[in-house]
């Protein structure tokens, strides 16, 4: 009741012009997001017989949900229009019986960012398939050197159509849909690559997290990675405070500059910044100057990096590791912001897919059987969403409807939606749920 009155007041303010349209919309949205609960009116009927590994809703219409599962199947659902009363069955399923289907678990499935005519699946059978959605046929096929853990395409790109693929192999490969060949191989990781993520601020920047605990930033126009995140380099807060800023930035920027200069010039005589492992002797000299950073053994997590998520503005990067830590990185400075997320335990053996809200205030993280919503900047837990009976692998937040989709090892895809208004509930439902005390 109280909440409703609040909404009405805001509406009046908006009518009077006291509140700007954008902030009004944002308030309504954040209000709705704070009420997320297991939806009773939207059931996604999962056709999968294995764990759900990946979920994505297309960015063009916000309507089609793509899910990939361990039983080598991929399915697409219409989340706007139910097929039966409050039931969303899959529009189509591609499984082992499809003659071009994957043989083993599909670890990732993503939409082509421009439209819903294509989608890309990566599987443990070492293949990445690009499918035509309308004909459900494979149009391009890439053979990878190992199990594919994660694939990613850039939302911003206007000049390339590259699929970044993290596999068991130490090299990250960029697959070009246009040519059907590998455009790049990025080497630097010392172990398999669990997760890849394109930057949200530059179409050329790719972030990868490996089983060696390193998070590397790559500019795909250049050789080698340009930034390796180091968990020992920290800063307190989102940005260095203004007063101290000059000092710190000077310090860090000189270091950075020094590093960059060193990279550019390639002379090893200068002092290397602390935390960068100095390379020794002849080995270093043989390397191409751009490849120097491969010698950087800094780690972002103890153990493997299992999840990466860049914020919408591309300024921050959230990472999860098998050390059950979530870290929020300032991309610009490359420092850990020391936000303490109250995770208890994270799943360690699978890539995790987490989701952020559009304004990056909340992040939804799969923590074993539950999904926790954290405040991005304080790390406080906002709410805990319980519904899965086994570990949750992936989340996807639908910005348009403020709905959260989660998939887990229990083969369910759950929809978490804001509480519906009473009027909505009155419309349907066979009998109202009421107290039933014996008189």
């Amino acid at each position: 009741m109280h909440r409703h009155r609040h909404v009405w007041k805001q509406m009046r303010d908006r009518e009077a012009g006291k509140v700007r349209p954008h902030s009004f919309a944002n308030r309504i949205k954040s209000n709705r997001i704070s009420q997320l609960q297991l939806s009773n009116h939207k059931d996604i009927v999962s056709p999968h017989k294995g764990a759900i590994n990946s979920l994505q809703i297309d960015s063009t219409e916000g309507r089609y949900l793509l899910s990939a599962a361990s039983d080598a199947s991929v399915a697409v659902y219409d989340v706007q229009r139910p097929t039966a009363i409050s039931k969303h069955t899959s529009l189509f399923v591609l499984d082992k019986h499809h003659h071009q289907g994957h043989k083993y678990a599909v670890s990732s499935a993503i939409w082509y960012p421009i439209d819903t005519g294509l989608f890309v699946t990566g599987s443990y059978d070492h293949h990445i398939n690009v499918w035509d959605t309308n004909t459900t046929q494979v149009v391009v096929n890439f053979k990878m050197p190992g199990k594919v853990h994660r694939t990613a395409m850039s939302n911003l790109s206007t000049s390339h159509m590259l699929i970044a693929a993290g596999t068991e192999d130490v090299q990250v490969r960029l697959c070009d849909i246009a040519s059907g060949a590998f455009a790049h191989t990025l080497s630097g990781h010392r172990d398999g690559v669990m997760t890849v993520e394109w930057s949200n601020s530059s179409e050329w920047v790719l972030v990868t997290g490996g089983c060696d605990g390193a998070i590397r930033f790559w500019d795909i126009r250049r050789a080698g990675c340009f930034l390796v995140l180091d968990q020992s380099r920290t800063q307190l807060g989102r940005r260095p405070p203004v007063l101290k800023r000059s000092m710190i930035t000077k310090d860090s920027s000189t270091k950075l500059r020094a590093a960059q200069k060193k990279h550019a010039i390639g002379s090893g005589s200068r002092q290397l910044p602390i935390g960068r492992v100095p390379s020794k002797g002849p080995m270093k000299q043989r390397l191409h100057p751009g490849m120097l950073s491969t010698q950087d053994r800094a780690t972002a997590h103890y153990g493997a990096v299992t999840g990466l998520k860049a914020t919408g503005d591309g300024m921050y990067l959230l990472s999860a590791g098998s050390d059950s830590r979530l870290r929020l990185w300032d991309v610009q400075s490359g420092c850990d912001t020391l936000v303490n997320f109250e995770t208890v335990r994270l799943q360690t053996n699978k890539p995790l897919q987490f989701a952020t809200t559009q304004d990056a205030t909340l992040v939804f993280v799969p923590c074993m059987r539950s999904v926790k919503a954290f405040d991005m900047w304080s790390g406080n837990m906002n709410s805990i969403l319980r519904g899965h009976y086994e570990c949750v692998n992936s989340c996807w937040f639908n910005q348009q409807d403020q709905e959260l989709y989660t998939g887990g090892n229990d083969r369910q895809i759950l929809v978490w939606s804001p509480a519906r208004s009473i009027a909505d509930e009155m419309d349907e439902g066979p009998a109202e749920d009421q107290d039933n005390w014996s008189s």
Partner: protein
Amino acid sequence: MDTEEVGHRKGTKVESLIEKATNTTAPEVDPRLLKAIKAVVRYSDSELRFATQALMDLMKRDHSQVRYLALLIIDELFMRSKLFRTLVVENLDQLLSLSVGFRRNLPLPDPPAVASVLRSKAIEFLEKWNVTFGVHYRQLRLGYDYLKNTLRFQFPNIQANVERIQQERRERERRSRAILLSKYESLQENSSSIKGGILSTMDEIDECLEILHAKQESMSDDILDNEELGDFRSLELQQLRFEALKEGEKVYENSENTVVFDTLRELYKLLITKHLVSIQEWISVLVRVELVDNRFRDSILKEFIDIRNRLKSVKNKCEEAGCSLLNSSKHEEEDFWEEGNVVSMEISCSAPDNKNEHLDVASTSHKMNNDNLVESNPQRSKLIAEAPVVRWSSYLDNWGSNRVFMANQRGLELDSHWGRVDDDAVIPAEKIAELNVHAMPYEEKEIEIQPCLAPLRKGGLCQRRDLKVCPFHGPIIPRDDEGRPLNQSSSEDMNMDLGTDLVEQLAKQAVKNVRERDQEVAKKREIDKQTLKRAKLAKIREHNEAVLRDAALASTSRSATLGEDLEVEDKLSARDKKQSLASMLRKKVTPKDRIAQKLLSSRARVTADRQHVSREDANYREAFPSQW
């Protein structure tokens, strides 16, 4: 502040109620407590929240009984309160993992018997909740689906079962209706032929009867005339005459009307076995069939009923005419069997297999026996009661006979083929008797072994039948209806299940002695009381007691510790009787445990190891004798 405090106090009230309700070993929640909980929770949401919290805490207890009772309360509240449902459903996976125990790292706690009940009950409840409230709570649907489709738990499926049974019944009814309808249709088609067949048979019977009667009348005319001449004045005589007349009207079979009788009998048989049965069937079909248009059915039903009545009357007529011959042989048989029963009862045979043989035994003597029974000769019956019962065998063929047997006249004509045959050779009677001596196998007398009848902890009496010693309850002794030993004083009956040992019995005796003496002391004390002051008396009492106890204990050899042990046991068993939650967890020592204790003791293991090693050594030495 104040409201909070009040809330808290009330909350503790609910909590204490719940705590009390779950702190028993009973298989059900005390209905009064449950009612109280419901009443308290009903009018206040905050108390309901407290109750939810308390119940969830109880579900985490490391005791299946507590969890079980808590689950029962949860179910009660779940079916009633919406708020409770929303609260519970939030944490449904936890509740399910605690009640069903489907997570491998969180198995259900002891005791296992209650744990299995808890699991089945939880599954049943989940199904019920899902059926009733699944529409409103996605979590319920999810939990149900997970347990059913992922973990493959067997749900009782109550609703589906009921539906299935109803469906089956409907199916059956539909089928029987269809059958009835098809029968009815066939009847519609050939009802005339059926009727025709029956009517023709009846006509034939009528004709036969007429023929018979016609003959009879012609024959009996003269007799009747004669009889009419006489005077019958008295009523009795008239009665007699009437009966005689009636008797005379009956037609008897003789050589002249045999043919007619035969046909009549055949027709009668046809009537009984075929037509009467079929007409009954048709009537039942007509009664049961459901039709839109009932006119034809009603008319034909009427006709059929008429026909049935006629059939019955004809049947009666036939029977009067003496057609009830069909059953005669059966009657004889039945009589025979009845006799047999009587015999077997009289001679009180124990083995039912021998019934026939016994019948054979008695068949000769029994005919007379029957007569005698009618006469009710007391001496005879007494003799019969005394008479020995013998098994049937071939020697009974020659029972009491003194005949001699011709040795060579057995129907085989040998005729001096192998030399001279003495046709007159006889086997003397005594030889025959010798050959036919009746063999009597020794039959052990069956003694009924008495059941142990010791009271069991779960109620009831021990029904084991052992000869002397029950392995669980010691020597078998006479006990009363409640299992208390008859010759023991009631205070010590608890010891009975322990006191198998002679030493212990001795010890018990010693304790008894002590108690007797104590009683004596008490008596003495009474006398002292009158003479001495209280303080003094107490001192003396103590002193006396001490002295006497010492004396008593010293008098029996090992009783000092044993007696105490027994008393401790006494207390223990008394506590067992009043079961607590902790006692449910105490593990029962099974024979397996005892064997394990013997076999897995370190000494046994060391010996076994040593033996094993030495045997291996020996094998090795045998295999490689020349190696060092």
